[in-house]
């Protein structure tokens, strides 16, 4: 007898929709994804969406409105496993640039002025784990196809996903690239989580840090290395904070000598 298919929901909160789009971009595999599981809800791909009990919820985007806060709480309640997909959902993303509430409020006022919003109640952008327990994190901006397919199939098989914890430099070495730091080009590879197959460096361009901070390795030493190369302390922090938003301050706290 055929095994009962897992019920999956794919949701988009605030972001660029790049992670949902990347799933759509898995063209050849997409039909199989739709066959292997019951895709109960996937707004970008279909109209007949049902929001019921789920085995797995994949959530993209950060929480930036009161409604989204309610949505994420509801998703958690009806899902056995919640996977944060993409850097916005995992770490807050680019829109989490204003870490201090005061900063965020000031900037919000600069953009929207005195217009009172009647349709939404805006909140300072936060990753979803500020509100709910997240089972797995699949970072990236956007997520990588190979990593997504691997994670998806692991979960379908009932196993935890096998994600990288090491920095981009490891993949970069696998790709036998020349180290850009040796050419005095400011590359964030040593501090950034792998998973992108070192794509930027493969194109002779420095890593921009879009996978967020790496979890393994000697981060303090990597940070010092960048300082020794003569790169500006503030600029390193600024560039790292571009994508990893909320998580960056926590990451920074683990770095000795990085705080002023």
């Amino acid at each position: 007898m055929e095994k009962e298919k897992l019920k999956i929901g794919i949701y988009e909160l605030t972001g660029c929709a790049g992670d949902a789009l990347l799933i759509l971009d898995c063209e050849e595999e997409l039909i199989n994804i739709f066959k292997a599981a019951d895709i109960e809800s996937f707004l970008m791909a279909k109209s007949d969406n049902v929001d019921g009990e789920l085995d797995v919820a994949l959530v993209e985007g950060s929480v930036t409105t009161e409604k989204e806060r309610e949505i994420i709480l509801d998703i958690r309640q009806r899902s056995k496993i919640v996977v944060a997909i993409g850097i916005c959902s995992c770490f807050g993303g680019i829109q989490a640039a204003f870490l201090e509430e005061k900063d965020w409020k000031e900037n919000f006022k600069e953009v929207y002025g005195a217009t009172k919003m009647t349709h939404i109640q805006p909140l300072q952008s936060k990753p979803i784990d500020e509100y709910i327990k997240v089972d797995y994190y699949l970072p990236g901006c956007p997520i990588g196809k190979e990593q997504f397919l691997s994670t998806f199939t692991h979960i379908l098989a009932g196993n935890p996903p096998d994600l990288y914890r090491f920095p981009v430099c490891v993949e970069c070495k696998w790709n036998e690239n020349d180290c850009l730091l040796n050419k005095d080009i400011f590359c964030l590879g040593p501090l950034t989580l792998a998973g992108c197959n070192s794509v930027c460096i493969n194109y002779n361009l420095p890593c921009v840090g879009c996978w967020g901070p790496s979890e393994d390795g000697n981060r303090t030493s990597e940070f010092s290395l960048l300082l020794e190369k003569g790169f500006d302390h503030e600029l390193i922090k600024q560039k790292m904070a571009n994508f990893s938003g909320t998580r960056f301050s926590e990451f920074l706290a683990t770095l000795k000598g990085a705080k002023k």
Partner: protein
Amino acid sequence: MKKIAIEHLARVEGNGGVTATIDGRLVTDVKFFVNEGPRLVERLVLGKTPEEDVNLVPRICAICSVSHKYAAIRALENALGVKVSAKVTLLRELMLLGEMIESHSLHVYFLALPDYLGFPSAVAMASKYSFETKIALEMKQFGNHIMKTVSGRFIHGENPVIGGFGKYPSRKEFVWIRNRAIQFMPFALKTAKLFAEVNYPNCPEAGTIFSCLNPDQEKFGFVGDEILLSTGEKISVKDYRDLTNEFLVSHSTCKRSHYKGKPYSVGALARINNLGERLEAEAGKMYKKYFNSHWKKNPLYNNAAQGLEILYSFERIPQVIDELLKLPDPPLVKYTKKEGKGAGAVEAPRGTLFDCYEVSGGRIAFADIVTPTAQNAEDIERYCYLAAQKLLEEGQEDKVKERMDLVVRSFDPCISCSVHMVQVKKATEEDWKEKLASLIKSESVVFVGLGKENHGDDGAGRELALRLREQGVKDVWLEEEIEDSFWEKNFPQPLIFIDAVCFGENPGKIALLPLQYVLWNSVSSHRLSLFLRNSLNYDQINNSFVLGIQPGLIEEGKGISRSVSQALQKILDEIKNYD
């Protein structure tokens, strides 16, 4: 109150929707809103280096990430005086052609076609149209492949940078893309034909202003330094603010634009309207065969325009690659300027995208990004209204939601650009009361009574105004008292025009409508339309209302009918309550 909600407009990119409120045979309110949370992108790039800005702004929208990158690069290169060689420009064109193919084929085949064939999703459609779905998917995949080859990734590739590219595709990669594009030609032709021949409903139809970039040398294309309007006017990209005039509405996170007080449209349909004559070869032949007056006024034809642009893109790719193959790979252009201001624009799949920056001390000091959906928002709302109102007049209320869905989707709104949703609400008898109460309570209003005495119910507006005056209401005017001095006052507060308006309802029916709806010519009040044209500015029109009463008999020498008199009393009692 009946509200048709297309909340979570499925199968559009992002998070927004449309709500329409229906009162009998009248649409009393339509709102296109974006629920996307605020991201403050133009603020968070301040203080960053130009290179970081080029990394960050494409994250506004994944589906247009190549356009966002390209527009930012164009603006910053203008600001910093960076001049790139022909190979760079051609390769940037190639990546944009890839994005057009990817975005348009995703939209026409997977988001729009299921509507016209009656399937809930492309996946459901795939079982019956497996061949078309398969080739369409390959076409989209090919667009993705071009973007990946040129930019480095399907989405948010970082290879295009200020001054050129980190790496150039190999000759082998170019040749592969060229040959594959030629192989796709029969299907590209089929696609253009298929979407030009779809039986699009004739509603809504109404003219608009089309705006797009004007490519050099009288060519068709997606990049230019000048804006071309369907009125024949031209505006330099650096003066883009003369076109876009952004403003905010309280029901949406997405800013709005209007040109000289009128909504305008951007996107494939705008480009085909303004530049279609320039199409050559097969795309040119298709244009001549299919372009007709509907394309000028019916937004649903945007799908047909996208089909034509898919064909154009496939014809253009081999030309671009033949040129690219002749040119050597240029090194990255280095620049030293740390100060400057510049604007740049590209045609994203869904319309013109403007970026403008000021750089000071090597850091971004000012950023302004005007997205296509922000420019289309007003027309999306207007066409939804026109479609809903026409269907109600024809007694087809059941089709309202579905049709509005088609209209919104035809604009291919990229909601991350700032949109998922259509709601239809049914207004109760009391709806106008609530609206009137909130207006009067929140600020002072000016009442203007229209109509002639002794003309039966035509005098309803005048009569009500007189009685309001008797009740001691301030700021009440009669039609015969309105002279230039009235308009010169430029009232900042809402104007409420009281008039007998034919809604096709029973005599005495009351409705409070945004003034705009009457000016859009859907509800008949010729008196008011003639009276108002050109006298009010855009903000005033947006902030004014018509308190309409359905007349019974309009005949010279007659008084006001009983049912209309009762309606007037109801309004008077209501206003009395607010004091």
